[in-house]
Every structure is written in structure tokens, then in C-alpha cells.
């Protein structure tokens, strides 16, 4: 049983460009959350997708957008990249059972903006 997978593992972009990151949740999971982790910091919640809709959003600008597909996989898009967007982007999946328990994190995508 594959865990959470993310692609690509590393990405280098320049300021102003756009990027799309992808995530496949753990089998049986229906909820995908995205986190941004700057160097030396804890992960910061970007948004969460459930039933193909954005259910909750953190304090991130509209340049950050996402999508969830019918197979529960998800994409994170970032437009007009800034140097400060350089970080590890983590996808976490979970399963709604009336409550949420642990989050399963993927290996992350390391984004460098030059």
C-alpha cells in the first residue's frame, strides 16, 4: 500500500513564474491538506480539500490555489512566484470518520525560487 506520494521532489523556478505541485493521498483517504514549511520552521497550513472543494484556508494569498480530483489526488498551484515562496511543500492526507486523527505526510516538494 503506497503512502502519500508527491511530485516533483525538487523544483527550481524564477520569480514571476508559476508552478504546479501534485499529490496522491494514501489509499482510502479522502482529504488532502497542503502545508508550507520554511527552513527551520514548523509546517504552515495552506488549505484543505475535501469532496473536490476547498474546505478551509490558512493565511496565504490568492496566488496559492488548488484542486482536488475525483480520485482524491490534488494539485497546488502558485502564481507569480516570489523569493519567499522557497520552501518545502508538504501534502498530508487523512480520512474523515466523523473526526480526524493523524495526518499522513508525503515526502514533500522542495521549491527554490531564484
Amino acid at each position, binding site marked *: 500500500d503506497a503512502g502519500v506520494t508527491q511530485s516533483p521532489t525538487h523544483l527550481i523556478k524564477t520569480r514571476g513564474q508559476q508552478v504546479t505541485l501534485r499529490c496522491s493521498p494514501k489509499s482510502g483517504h479522502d482529504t488532502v491538506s497542503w502545508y508550507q514549511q520554511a527552513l527551520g520552521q514548523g509546517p504552515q497550513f495552506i488549505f484543505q480539500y475535501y469532496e473536490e472543494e476547498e474546505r478551509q484556508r490558512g493565511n496565504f494569498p490568492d496566488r496559492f490555489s488548488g484542486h482536488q480530483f475525483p480520485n482524491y489526488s490534488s494539485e497546488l498551484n502558485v502564481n507569480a512566484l516570489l523569493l519567499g515562496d522557497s520552501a518545502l511543500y508538504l501534502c498530508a492526507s487523512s480520512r474523515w470518520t466523523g473526526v480526524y486523527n493523524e*495526518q499522513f505526510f508525503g515526502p514533500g516538494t522542495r521549491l527554490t525560487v531564484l
Partner: protein
Amino acid sequence: GQQVMQIPQYQHVQEGEDFTTYCNSSTTLSNIQWYKQRPGGHPVFLIQLVKSGEVKKQKRLTFQFGEAKKNSSLHITATQTTDVGTYFCAQPGSGNTGKLIFGQGTTLQVKP
């Protein structure tokens, strides 16, 4: 807003010494989770505490949830080099959506 403070930021210990990290919230929590992130890795779930005063053990790791459900601690007895990494506590965000608010983490270095 919701915040969770974690101390210390860094801890260097000699192999065999004990280690403790503390997590404090400004609000009463429904639960608290702990994650470990190895260098270059991703957060891995360790445990969830739900009840006031709860104490759970995993081999050399002891997790505690305060009586007021506003603080928590992780204690490692007789550290080993495999314990190296950053330990995060995480509290649930508003709404029952599974959103997590992470502390800044405590990075543990173990000298062999």
C-alpha cells in the same frame, strides 16, 4: 489567534542522556498531536493525546497532556542517535477539519 509555543528550539545531548520538549497553547485544546521529522525527511505521526492528564508511553518516549489541556510534553529516556530529528507538537485548528497548527519544533542532536 491560535498559537502553540514549543521550547526549547534546540537541544544537544550526549547519547544516553534524557531529553524533554514542551508545548504550550494559549487555548484549551481538544487534543494534541506529536510528530517527528528526521533531517531531510517529512513529519511522521507519533501520537495523539486527548484526555486531561493523559500519559502515554512508546518504548523510551513518554508523552503527557496537561490537566488543563493547555500544555504537553515529550520526554525521551536514554537518547540514542536514532532519536535525532525535529519534534513538533501540533494542535487542531478551528473547525473539525483536521487542520493542524504546528509549534516551531525542537531539534534534537545526539552526540555518540
